[in-house]
């Protein structure tokens, strides 16, 4: 064949494809498929865009808790080389130095926690200052000028000073310029106690308070591009241990870290489920489209179209559809995400960072993968349609083999899920849930339909008709119950997980959780302090004795020696550092024994925090020698504990059984809840007991609560989007089986069945399908949620009896509503029209 003729043929065929695409579009044949694609691309890109931006906002909000994206911390000075490398990577840097010091004004003095900062601090978050103590505050980008300090409001009455007055810090006289109302990285550390004094790092040498042996806390703040931060972490990895620690928000604030981690998993899961649902909708849409084109293809073939022509034509059509639907889907996703962001704007005064390009790529690729994995098999199978169909319409077309269809869908889902989540574990559990449910509950659906038929024989005509219909198309209906069931199940899973995550967070941060800790209370004043706290605050009543001491030997080996030997074991707390020891009778509530046994009485026993034990290589049965105030004694390790560090309650690496530490001078620690408006009480407390130390964690708790609140919003939003995708699958599934059902009912109408009877029978049929699907969904959701909560989110699993009622009710409501709405117009049309339209 000559080249020009072949070119002309190709052009003519392309024109034909375009014309058919346009016709199918106008006649509504492609509507379902296009909507499914739009929803797939739209949902995924909307979720990606929103979570991307919310995620960035959350991270930057969380970074405020560090005043940076990452920090390097140490008790030693941090080498300039670290800072140079960070700058070379294009990162912003700043330094802070925190230490406790006395400040003097005349004969008055006050212990403060000094934070000396370099230019650029804080890299994330903002400082807030006021012109007078307890006055209205405002954000500022400035820092104290040279020779000036900013002071916590409650130091002013304690020292009897006003802004502008001089104070003495060590050997230097500095001017108090402003009142420091808030700093982003305030608190959270029990090292960081006392009211704050903020000054310039350059002024520290003049004070002369930093001497060899001083307890100092150095931080190098880092902020900038995530990739650069990761690269720096890799480069510095070997230089950090054992003296320097690399910290991100996850390590710095375990509560926020946990919340973020779980929220990310949840959002991903939501996205995954949306992708699966949209994929299912695309598959259903494509099957219906293909089925409606059997006759067209047979005619084309009769007229000389070869199987290759047919395949070319329909693949071109699909590609055209993708090229059309994907950009539209992205626009839709963009619009939905903007609507969400705008609706959240009133709740979230935070400016959301601009989204990256990835969400759009995710949306577009999802669209094409959905199209090719879910829609191509049924559509390319059209090439196998026999042209004999033009004279023998009853000629069955078996469609693509089940292996190809399911295989392609499974591979497509797997690729999408792993690519989207980056988590093989989450993907496998989700797919396993879906697969397990499909197999087991396919059987249940089959049995339900069979049983339904037997019951239906005794029912009225409407129900008999409905159940007979269900039984007649049993295979299709089992599939449909499964699809409905899976869609409802996925939605229930999300609802359940959301509820569990939120409850878990709420339980972690109850509204009146202690937000202040009092330390250094000596035994003589303990009763008075407790009395005052009980009268003025929501007092917890929990008391912890604290004795300073250190480990000097482990099983006879000197601790310093052992530490040197084990230097490479980790970057945890040092074995021979002096630390707070405490003794208790009962295991604290947020501790869990992971090895050995808790004591039931007095004895020379000690319990170690599990991670500390691992890093120092200490195990059950080891004998530790302690030095407390010069006296030495030995105790045996009897248990290892896992500690909930995120609980914002006092936790100890080393807990003793009663009977060992009582003979040494102890100070006491206790906690209370103080609402923000009662903050002045701290001055009264500190005024009456000047030697005690108050640690304020209220700002940290408030910040964590804000973050959790935002995460919750993101989760609810994703849930809403997934609900939309789920409904689409239901509609697609109903649409896909609509023709077959309607043909039967049109025949019944032609034979004299009333519109009422047909509508009733259809409603009954959909209601039964919905109820069965609901039962399947409840069982599946319960199982999958249990697996996901315990394995992925690592929360305790629980049963949900209400689900068993909700599943079927939801199933009936959704399926019957969608079904009746989807078939209403055709039930109303004269039967002859229906029969003619459906051929």
């Amino acid at each position, binding site marked *: 064949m000559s080249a020009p*003729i*072949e070119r*002309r*043929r*190709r052009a*003519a*065929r392309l*024109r*034909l494809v375009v*014309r*058919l695409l346009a*016709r*199918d579009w*106008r*006649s509504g*044949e492609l509507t379902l498929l296009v909507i499914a694609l739009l929803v797939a691309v739209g949902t995924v890109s909307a979720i990606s865009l929103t979570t991307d931006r919310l995620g960035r906002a959350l991270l930057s909000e969380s970074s405020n808790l560090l005043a940076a994206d990452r920090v390097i911390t140490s008790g030693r000075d941090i080498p300039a080389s670290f800072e140079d490398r960070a700058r070379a990577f294009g990162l912003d840097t700043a330094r802070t130095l925190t230490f406790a010091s006395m400040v003097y004004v005349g004969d008055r003095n006050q212990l403060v926690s000094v934070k000396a900062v370099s230019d650029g601090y804080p890299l994330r978050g903002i400082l807030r200052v006021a012109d007078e103590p307890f006055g209205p505050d405002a954000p500022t980008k400035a820092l104290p000028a040279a020779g000036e300090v900013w002071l916590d409001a409650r130091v002013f009455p304690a020292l009897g000073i006003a802004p502008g007055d001089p104070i003495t810090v060590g050997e230097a006289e500095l001017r108090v310029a402003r009142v420091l109302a808030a700093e982003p990285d305030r608190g959270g550390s029990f090292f960081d106690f006392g009211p704050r004094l903020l000054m310039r790092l350059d002024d520290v040498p003049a004070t002369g308070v930093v001497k060899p042996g001083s307890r100092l806390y150095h931080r190098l703040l880092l902020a900038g591009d995530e990739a650069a931060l990761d690269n720096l972490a890799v480069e510095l990895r070997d230089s950090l241990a054992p003296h320097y620690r690399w910290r991100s928000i996850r390590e710095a604030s375990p509560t926020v870290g946990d919340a973020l981690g779980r929220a990310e998993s949840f959002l991903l899961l939501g996205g995954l489920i949306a992708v699966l649902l949209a994929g299912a909708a695309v598959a259903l849409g494509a099957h219906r489209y293909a089925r409606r084109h059997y*006759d*067209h293809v*047979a*005619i*084309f*073939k*009769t*007229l*000389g*179209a*070869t*199987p*290759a*022509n047919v395949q070319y034509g329909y693949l071109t059509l699909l590609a055209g559809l993708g090229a059309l639907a994907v950009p539209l889907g992205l626009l839709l996703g963009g619009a939905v995400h903007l609507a969400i962001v705008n609706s959240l704007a009133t709740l979230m005064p935070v400016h959301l960072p601009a989204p990256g390009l990835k969400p759009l790529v995710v949306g577009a690729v999802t669209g094409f993968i959905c199209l090719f994995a879910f829609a191509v098999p049924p559509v390319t199978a059209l090439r196998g349609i*026999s*042209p*004999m169909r*033009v*004279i*023998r*319409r009853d000629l069955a077309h078996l469609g693509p083999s089940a292996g190809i269809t399911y295989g392609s869908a499974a591979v497509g889902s797997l690729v999408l899920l792993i690519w989207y989540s980056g988590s093989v574990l989450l993907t496998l559990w989700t797919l396993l849930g879906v697969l397990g449910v499909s197999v087991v509950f396919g059987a249940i659906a089959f049995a339900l339909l069979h049983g339904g038929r037997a019951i239906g024989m005794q029912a009225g005509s409407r129900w008999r008709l409905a159940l007979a219909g269900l039984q007649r198309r049993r295979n299709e209906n089992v599939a449909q119950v499964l699809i409905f069931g899976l869609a409802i199940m996925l939605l229930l899973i999300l609802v359940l997980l959301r509820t569990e995550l939120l409850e878990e967070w709420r339980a972690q941060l109850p509204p009146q959780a202690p937000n202040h800790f009092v330390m250094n209370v000596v035994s003589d004043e303990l009763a008075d302090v407790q009395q005052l706290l009980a009268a003025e605050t929501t007092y917890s009543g929990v008391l912890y004795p604290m004795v300073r001491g250190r480990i000097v030997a482990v099983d006879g080996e000197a601790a310093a020696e052992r530490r040197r030997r084990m230097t490479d074991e980790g970057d945890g707390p040092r074995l021979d550092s002096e630390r707070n020891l405490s003794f208790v009778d009962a295991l604290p509530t947020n501790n869990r024994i992971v090895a050995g046994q808790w004591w039931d009485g007095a004895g020379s026993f000690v319990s170690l925090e599990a991670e500390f034990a691992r890093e120092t290589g200490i195990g059950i049965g080891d004998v530790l020698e302690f030095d407390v105030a010069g006296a030495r004694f030995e105790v045996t390790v009897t248990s290892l504990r896992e500690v909930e560090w995120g609980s914002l309650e006092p936790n100890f690496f080393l807990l003793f059984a009663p009977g060992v530490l009582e003979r040494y001078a102890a100070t006491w620690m206790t906690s209370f809840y103080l609402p923000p408006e009662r903050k002045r009480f701290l001055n009264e407390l500190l005024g009456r007991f000047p030697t005690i130390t108050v640690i304020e964690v209220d700002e940290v708790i408030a910040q964590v609560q804000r973050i959790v609140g935002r995460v919750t919003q993101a989760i609810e939003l994703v849930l809403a989007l997934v609900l939309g995708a789920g409904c689409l699958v239901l509609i697609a599934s109903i649409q896909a089986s609509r023709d077959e059902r309607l043909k039967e009912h049109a025949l019944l109408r032609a034979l004299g069945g009333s519109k009422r009877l047909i509508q009733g029978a259809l409603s009954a049929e959909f209601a039964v399908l919905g109820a069965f699907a609901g039962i399947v969904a409840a069982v599946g959701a319960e199982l999958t949620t249990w697996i996901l909560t315990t394995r992925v989110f690592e929360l305790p699993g629980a049963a949900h009896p209400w689900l068993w009622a909700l599943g079927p009710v939801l199933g009936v409501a959704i399926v019957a509503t969608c079904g009746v709405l989807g078939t209403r117009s055709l039930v109303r049309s004269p039967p002859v029209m229906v029969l*003619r339209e459906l051929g």
Partner: protein
Amino acid sequence: MTTPILRARGITKVLPTTEGELAILTGVDLEINAGESVAVMGRSGSGKTTLLGILAGLDSPSAGTVVLDGEEITALDEERRAVVRGERVGFVFQSFQLLGSLTALENVMLPGELKGDADPRADALALLARVGLAERTTHYPRQLSGGEQQRVAIARAFASKPSILFADEPTGNLDTATGEHIIELIFELNREFETTLVLVTHDARLAVRCDRVIELEAGHIVAERMAVRQ
């Protein structure tokens, strides 16, 4: 001397059923000459539609050969059979088989477009005018009567300038008067285009208009006679 445009030898079609194999056609031999019109008659289930499908290359036999216009179509795969159909075969069906989403004109243009003809539109317009539907070119099938739809189908059948036309009960869905018109049209165009006509029907009045009548019964040719023109 007349040459056979269609030659079938030992055509057998067996279908598997739950009760074993069912023979639809058994050893059918047949020759049809170029320009000839042949009616295939028989009762429902006699195998005439199956035979038409095999002769036209829509289906393959379980055994036997079909040579159409010099090409042994039973030796071809579906890809090449489709090309043969597109170039040499035209079809008219009982149920018209128009594409509902295309207009009358677009339906008639289809074969030309699939073949890559230079100007399928002009040919299609001329054919539609020839079948008396010049005014209905932009109408969709659902906007046309049964007779009009069949006329569009006839125009489409001749659009590829086939050497042989297969018609399967072309009047089966039409009333008597309309059926008459349609038959008239098919025979007229058949003469004009010098096409060979193979007509499957159980309408004796239609069959007698053909040069030859072949009678099928239970998958066998039981009678073959030259038609007696009235």
